[in-house]
């Protein structure tokens, strides 16, 4: 058994994790990281197989609440547990199977295309605020705002409440991503959940009186037809949409633009052949996607290569490493705007494949389209710096760009 004590938050590994991943794939594709207290898998084959492995469980929440909190804390944070334990991202079959099928209908590529005009309008409005300026902060002035605006609008929240959604999204993101963490963070998370739930309950009641054509209404119809669902399930699902769609999409937009700015020749090609925008998005996802890894818990003893992962052990699946595995991708470190097929694992694979993937792709596509129409050149003022996060790849704000119309 290979055991290491590597610091995954080491500044060099945060700035440029890919060299480290190459060493992992070459020298210790499966190993135990004592500091992180779990197994780390890094090749395409192992990560892909693990994402499809039914023995690797996605419910990382229940073990946390059971083993790290006292009985009193469990009572105190019962609502937080109830909410997180209803989110499909943290559910395993059979509960996962039923709920996932319900929500999937709202996020198929075809249903997401019906949101295209609404998303396009929000993209235009967000970019209108750049007019007449020479320099912007891509994150504060765009990437951190668009995803929450899209989710709030799709759910059916009134426009004047958008700022409140931005606030909840920011707080929930800081509190929940990268592990649940300290009790203070849990307390603050629960306060936000209580406030957000009360808001959504009002929105729900308003929808009862005045049905709208939006996702809240659609979820309410599903709830009416399904004995096992209740109104809380609808409210918690809306919370999941905001939380899941916010930071990941923000990172997708910022990381992709930071990547594309370095590929000037290829961008010029995209200007001449607009169909390349779709393959360009996949290549950005592969090389610099918003999530470096995802976590699982072994539901039983699992043998991989010559190692035995014990029931209950934590496992980190490094998609960002799998995406640069030369066994799967030719010239894995180079950006090829027309790379196809591009079976990257940035949205995961298997039953937890990102529900919001079509919406995230749509937001990025319309962003790139509008940017190419409005601005001749975008330049980074200073290089992108990445935040010290273990699982997500997130640029530290501000990300200053000079813009020329």
């Amino acid at each position, binding site marked *: 058994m290979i055991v290491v004590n590597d610091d995954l938050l080491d500044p060099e590994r945060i700035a440029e994790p890919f060299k480290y991943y190459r060493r992992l794939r070459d020298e210790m594709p499966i190993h135990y990281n004592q500091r992180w207290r779990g197994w780390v898998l890094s090749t395409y084959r192992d990560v892909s197989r693990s994402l*499809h492995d039914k023995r690797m469980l996605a419910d990382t929440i229940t073990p946390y609440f059971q083993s790290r909190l006292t009985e009193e804390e469990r009572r105190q944070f019962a609502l937080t547990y109830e909410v997180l334990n209803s989110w499909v991202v943290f559910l395993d079959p059979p509960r996962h199977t039923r709920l*996932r099928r319900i929500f*999937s209908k709202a996020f*198929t590529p075809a249903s997401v295309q019906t949101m295209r005009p609404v998303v396009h309008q929000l993209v235009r409005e967000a970019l209108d605020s750049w007019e007449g300026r020479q320099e912007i902060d891509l994150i504060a002035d765009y990437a951190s705002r668009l995803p929450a605006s899209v989710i709030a609008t799709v759910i059916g929240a009134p426009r004047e409440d958008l700022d409140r959604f931005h606030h909840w999204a920011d707080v929930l993101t800081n509190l929940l991503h990268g592990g649940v963490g300290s009790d203070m963070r849990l307390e603050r998370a629960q306060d936000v959940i209580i406030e957000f739930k009360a808001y959504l309950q009002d929105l729900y009641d308003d929808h009862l009186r005045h049905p709208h054509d939006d996702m809240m209404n659609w979820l309410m119809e599903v709830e009416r037809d399904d004995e096992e669902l209740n109104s809380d399930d609808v409210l918690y699902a809306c919370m999941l949409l905001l939380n899941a769609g916010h930071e990941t999409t923000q990172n997708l937009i910022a990381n992709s633009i930071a990547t594309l700015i370095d590929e000037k020749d290829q961008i010029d090609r995209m200007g001449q052949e607009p169909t390349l925008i779709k393959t360009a998005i996949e290549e950005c996802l592969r090389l610099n996607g918003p999530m470096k890894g995802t976590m699982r818990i072994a539901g039983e003893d699992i043998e991989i290569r010559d190692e035995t992962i014990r029931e209950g052990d934590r496992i980190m699946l490094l998609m960002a490493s799998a995406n640069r595995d030369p066994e799967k991708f030719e010239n894995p470190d180079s950006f090829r705007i027309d790379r196809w097929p591009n*079976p990257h694992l940035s949205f995961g694979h298997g*039953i937890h*494949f990102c529900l919001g993937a*079509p919406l995230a792709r749509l937001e990025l596509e319309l962003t790139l389209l509008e940017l190419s129409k409005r601005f001749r050149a975008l330049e980074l003022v200073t290089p992108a710096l990445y935040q010290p996060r273990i699982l997500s790849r997130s640029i530290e704000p501000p990300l200053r760009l000079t813009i020329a119309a």
Partner: protein
Amino acid sequence: MALKRLVKVEIDHDLCVGSSMCTGIDPEGFKMDGEGHAVYVGDNIDEDLAEEAAGICPVAAIKLIYED
């Protein structure tokens, strides 16, 4: 409108991400191979289920081919 018969169900393995939505909806028709991709194995195509599976596929990997 004359309805055309569904004669073939194809899965694009470059797109398939193994979400198992199709195998859940139509377990007789769709199966997962060892690599986490769906394959269509149904002898007699159940049109309604195949269409439902194609509609819910998160990556639109299921192509339905109707007779001319």
